[in-house]
């Protein structure tokens, strides 16, 4: 079971509260986690990564286990603690005013 935290705006779009828990088949990577997230919550398609290029949106970052994983390759394995559900995969919106 993979734990994913979403920023408030995306929790509202997905109609969820708190962490999202996902089953991910095979290797646990950014891509497989986001694929599973978007299958479960199709309303999030296009909000985290581009519909076509699948690139992370500029103001979105991925954190886990105290590390910034935003620039890791999408098919790189996520930390063991994320794969085992001990730590969440955090999807974070950039901090900005306005």
């Amino acid at each position: 079971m993979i734990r994913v935290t979403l920023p408030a705006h995306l929790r509202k779009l997905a109609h969820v509260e708190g962490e999202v828990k996902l089953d991910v088949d095979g290797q646990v990577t950014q891509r497989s986690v986001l694929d599973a997230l978007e299958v479960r919550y199709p309303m999030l398609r296009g909000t985290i990564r581009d519909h076509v290029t699948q690139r992370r949106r500029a103001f979105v970052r991925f954190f886990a286990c105290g590390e910034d994983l935003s620039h890791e390759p999408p098919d790189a394995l996520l930390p063991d603690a994320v794969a085992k559900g001990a730590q969440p995969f955090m999807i974070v919106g950039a901090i900005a005013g306005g």
Partner: protein
Amino acid sequence: MSGIRVLVGTRKGAFVLTSDAKRERWNVSAPLFAGWEIYHLKGSPADPNRLYASQSSSWFGQIIQRSDDGGTTWHQPGTPPGEPTTTPDGMPKGESNKFVYDTSSETGKPLTTHQWYDGTPHPWEFKRVWHLEPSLHDPDTVYAGVEDAALFRSTDGGQTWQELPGLRGHGSGASWAPGAGGMCLHTILLDPSNPNRIFTAISSAGAFRTNDAGKTWQPINRGLHSLYIPNPTAEVGHCVHRIAMNRSRPGVLFMQKHWDVMRSDNAGESWQEISGNLPTDFGFAIDVHAHEPETIYVVPIKSDAEHFPPDGKLRVYRSRTGGNEWEPLTKGLPQSDCYVNVLRDAMAVDSLDKCGVYFGTTGGQVYASADAGDSWAPIVRDLPPVVSVEVQTLP
């Protein structure tokens, strides 16, 4: 008894303002889509309970919202809460925020670049939906004007969108350049007398018309004069801020340009300046009285460098002669220390008798006049900056 529903898009959410036909007492909704930029909301003329909203943010991109009950509940088309969001074979039912430019060789000339601010080629990049224009006849058909400038259409209630590529591909697209607010397609006018005729306007490319339901397009900018482009009378490159029409006379168009108020009596074939005695002919919004096609409204703004009313006085100007002769409308509007702007999509009229006129400001006020502009009162004073105002006259 009929009523009025005012749909207000702001920098931090949407608001629905409702009143009976007297237009004296208003109910202001709680914010919808709080925290998101709502560039535009509009109701279907064919079904007033069908509303569409453009919700966007720099963080999470574009979202389309739809209401089927007059704004009480909303959902992303194809993903209503509590219902399956995928088809039996696992595909998403809706991709309502997927706006992908058409680059196929069959349906238009593949276009890869327009001009950037510095004149260099720049790839087309979708940023947001500026304007949603529901079909006059079918609640499930709706047009979207987007940045970077293009026209999209949905025929399934907003679940999926397809570009009408003939507009970008008609020949001048590679020379279009953005204005300060971005290269946006902000005006979509559907001709009530001819379902094949659509007018659009783009900042800062100009106005365009199709006579074949969007397959082919032509620029309609003859008579426009713009000193900020190398050739002031070029076929394209004019920063049109807004076009308006009266539904009873769709061949007559009124335009607020980046400087100059213009009119066309031949569906855009040519334009004449009608700025007349306006204190300044810079501005963004323009609209036409619902029952008097020669009565038009603008909100003069001091200049392209100073986006607020001249002398700190918020004045709507009305012409009852189709332009050139203008009168200031001030009763109920602040006449000192007012430095707000009124953006291009932030003025609308109702179709009651007397015609109501509405506009919103970047200071968060929404003003209404129930007597065609003779007097004004704020419906609400302290919203986030207002981006758009639309009005529904309910049966």
